[in-house]
């Protein structure tokens, strides 16, 4: 027996995908012309699937801060936070995040994935129960598993289902931790946080909200879905990432719980990994300032999101959620989804191909994410190319039916 035999199903599926055209896992970004255009597989392409919501990856001040940090602090820290990897700038960034979110304390992690892993496995223990939204990100599920807690999955965005499960659970185990996301990454829908907060209060549970896709995107000051829905005081723990609206790499956890900093000595994904690089810490510290100073970026993002959403809806595409910077188009089958994604790439539009197990409910999606950096002309051009795709798909379908 070979050690890779267990992946035979995945291998067959990958072979099937390769036969349909370009390998979606083999996309190569060549030269980046800007935050919204790159040479992809040798062709100039409009990027509309990068999660670069505010377009800050090339922001002048963020780049300058990162370069200064490399020149004065080097390329890496070569150590974990609990050994030699805590620089003054890590503490400054944590102070900036805590201040921005109005929380007592914040902890920086090297990636968003590790932020969920560290926060969840640090907060919940073997005798606790986690109630997790069914459509949560893989990093949340992996954090739950690492915690060793009892994990109960409730129906997506369904506070009544959560309420029933908490009622049934009544009195068992030690603490209860509820986990939801601000904006869900695949479909782009938003958690009904007000209703979740009511349930949380009724059952004396703790609430963790992952604002990965909503930080910098929602709320009057960009603090996320919690701010937008005016429930920040009832959210016990916030998780976020630097790799979307903040244009860097890394993640954080934040809270006003007086004992929160204990996680620095109890969360293994925080303790046993090298700390974030000086360049990342510097660019993210700058980026938080930018999103605070420039609310117009957020306004432009939503204006662009509406323009693309309306354009694609007018073409008859089946969009999964309401207005959101994540615009997911439902395709009728996995095969057609691959065909459409390949064709879009040929037409010079990069979107995310999202299929199970990365999507909920077996959905096959062409997932777009909009940026404040897109111009109206780019969005209109994307819509024109989607119109061409729609025509071709209709022809293809009628040919198959005939």
């Amino acid at each position: 027996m070979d050690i890779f035999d267990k992946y035979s199903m995945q291998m067959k599926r990958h072979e099937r995908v390769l036969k349909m055209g370009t390998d979606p896992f083999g996309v190569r970004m060549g030269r980046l012309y800007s935050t919204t255009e790159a040479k992809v597989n040798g062709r100039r392409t409009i990027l509309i699937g990068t999660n670069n919501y505010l377009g800050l990856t090339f922001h002048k001040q963020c780049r300058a801060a990162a370069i200064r940090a490399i020149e004065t602090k080097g390329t890496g820290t070569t150590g974990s936070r609990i050994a030699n990897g805590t620089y003054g700038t890590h503490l400054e960034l944590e102070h900036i995040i805590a201040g921005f979110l109005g929380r007592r304390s914040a902890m920086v992690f090297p990636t968003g994935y590790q932020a969920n892993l560290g926060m969840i496995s640090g907060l919940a223990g073997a005798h606790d129960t986690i109630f997790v939204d069914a459509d949560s990100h893989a990093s949340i599920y992996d954090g739950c598993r690492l915690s060793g807690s009892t994990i109960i999955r409730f129906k997506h965005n369904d506070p009544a289902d959560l309420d029933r499960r908490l009622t049934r659970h009544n009195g068992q185990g030690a603490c209860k931790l509820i986990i939801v996301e601000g904006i869900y990454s695949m479909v782009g829908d938003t958690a009904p946080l007000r209703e979740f907060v009511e349930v949380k209060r009724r059952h004396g549970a703790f609430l963790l909200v992952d604002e990965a896709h909503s930080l910098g995107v929602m709320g009057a000051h960009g603090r996320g879905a919690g701010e937008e829905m005016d429930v920040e005081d009832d959210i016990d723990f916030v998780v976020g990432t630097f790799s979307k609206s903040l244009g860097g790499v890394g993640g954080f956890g934040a809270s006003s719980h007086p004992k929160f900093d204990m996680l620095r000595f109890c969360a293994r994904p925080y303790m046993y990994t090298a700390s974030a690089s000086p360049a990342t810490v510097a660019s993210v510290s700058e980026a938080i300032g930018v999103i605070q100073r420039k609310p117009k970026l957020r306004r432009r993002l939503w204006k662009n999101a509406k323009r693309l959403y309306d354009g694609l809806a007018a073409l008859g595409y089946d969009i999964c959620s309401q207005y959101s910077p994540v615009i997911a188009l439902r395709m009728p089958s996995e095969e057609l989804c691959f065909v459409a994604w390949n064709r879009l790439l040929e037409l010079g539009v990069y979107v995310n191909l999202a299929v199970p197990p990365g999507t909920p409910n077996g959905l096959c999606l062409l997932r777009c994410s909009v940026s404040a950096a897109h111009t109206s002309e780019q969005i209109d051009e994307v819509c024109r190319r989607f119109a061409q795709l729609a025509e071709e798909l209709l022809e293809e379908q009628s040919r198959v039916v005939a």
Partner: protein
Amino acid sequence: MATDSVHIISDLCALLQRYNKEGVELTGPTALSADLNVASVEIMDLVMEIEEKFGIDIPINLLFDVEKVDDLAKLVQDRMGQ
């Protein structure tokens, strides 16, 4: 609601029909992954349906040991007894 294992297995097999793409005969010893090719994400959705039908919660960390319909039936029975 019937709580004996025969009835539970019968109910589970009825719920599993939707995932039985190749028309395999469904019995207690049927393996979810090896015989039915049910992917792990589909098992999570199946569990949601089972929870609804029996009015129970099945922690997903208990699913790691579930291989066959019989294992699932025992899990349902245990959770109903709680």
